[in-house]
């Protein structure tokens, strides 16, 4: 009976300590829960903003007139050191950035199957495939536009890349064929040579490198005209798509 009396207070304290341990464990679970609550929703909303921003960039490029970009300068940024937007003053009026881009691409029809004509065009600021090609600064106009339109994200530490993909009988059925770029690419990436042969170019290459990329594509039709044997004008729309991808510079 004496032993029982001694153990009475021990039983009460043991119960209290067990209650305290259970409560502490519950508190830890609650803290863990509130630490992660809402993170998924927040991530979705932030991604929605980035995607909407990139869609706005695509839409704005269809409306911005090339001549209004003539005052855009390199801004002391290395990757734009060769960018000359002043040449756009020679394209006044309502000639848009995308109009110049279409002219740059309109010198071939990769889906025609005809020799000499069925080649992938280049973004080379030229209309024509030979040395007599006319100067059409389509790539430069898009580069000037993208430099400004993507500036807020570029200064926030993001890297962007703009590319054109051919959908005319592409070798790459899923993405389309990458239209090569001559000279400065339409990007703020310092990793030059994204379109170098032997490596996967453009946004696909960035994705294959394992980086977390957000991508927005939009259809882009280019009118290709030629004269037939009878001297009549023969025109058809060639299907391309434009793609803008963006990724955090910190990740690569």
């Amino acid at each position, binding site marked *: 009976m004496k032993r029982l009396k*001694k153990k009475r207070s021990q039983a*009460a304290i043991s*119960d209290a300590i067990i209650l*305290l341990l259970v409560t502490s464990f519950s*508190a830890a679970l609650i803290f863990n829960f509130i630490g992660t609550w809402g993170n998924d929703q927040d991530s979705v909303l932030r991604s929605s903003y980035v995607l909407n921003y990139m869609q706005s960039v695509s839409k704005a490029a269809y409306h911005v007139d090339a001549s209004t970009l003539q005052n855009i300068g390199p801004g002391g940024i290395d990757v734009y050191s060769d960018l000359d937007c002043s040449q756009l003053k020679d394209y006044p009026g309502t000639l848009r950035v995308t109009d110049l881009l279409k002219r740059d691409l309109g010198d071939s029809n990769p889906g025609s199957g005809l020799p000499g004509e069925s080649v992938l065009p280049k973004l080379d600021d030229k209309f024509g495939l030979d040395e007599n090609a006319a100067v059409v600064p389509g790539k430069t106009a898009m580069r000037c536009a993208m430099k400004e339109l993507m500036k807020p994200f570029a200064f926030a530490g993001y890297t962007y890349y703009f590319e054109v993909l051919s959908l005319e009988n592409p070798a790459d059925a899923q993405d389309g064929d990458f239209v090569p770029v001559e000279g400065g690419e339409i990007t703020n990436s310092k990793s030059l040579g994204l379109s170098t042969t032997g490596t996967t170019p453009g946004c696909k290459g960035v994705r294959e490198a394992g980086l977390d990329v957000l991508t927005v594509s939009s259809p882009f039709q280019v009118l290709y005209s030629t004269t037939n044997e009878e001297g009549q004008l023969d025109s058809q729309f060639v299907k391309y798509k434009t793609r803008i991808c963006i990724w955090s510079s910190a990740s690569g």
Partner: protein
Amino acid sequence: MRFHLKSKGFIGPLGDDIPSIFPIVFAVLLFGGTVIYANQVISEKASALETREGAVSLSYLVTEKGFLSDAELEKICTEKIEARAASLKVRYLITLKRFCDGIPVDFTSSDPDLNPYGNGEKASPFYLDTSLVAGETWFYCSNSEEVETTGTGLFEQPKQSILLSFPVAVPCPNYDSFTSGLGVVNVITWK
């Protein structure tokens, strides 16, 4: 059974339970405090999510087209934004700016590469005005009484507000030009 006062550790039937009161009280306070804190945190996070959701929702209405003028923005605000913001129970301020010479990234900077206009706070998304000068606020709309009270000038950014900016095409170089250049529409929401 008699109570023996000299038995070790034996105070009394109620006295023996006194030491256990402290961990019990502490456990109750810990659990209650945790629940109250969790409720507060979740409430704040939910409010922030609702504000961000409101900003994203309103921005879809504003950025439907790639081109925006002051008249079009006024029409969108009147016909769509007001009703949507009322259903989402958020207050909003939308400013439209013409940045024909380039989009500034730091309106406080005097470096022309960071702010081509050198107009300080007038390039801020929160500056209220109806100016025809490039680099300043061309048009704004809001459902907030504080915005109405501020009039022309810098509107103090509300606490826990969300700012989303989007590029649009606007008339450039002048407000009535037929050519279009660079512009930005800012969507600010708060509770």
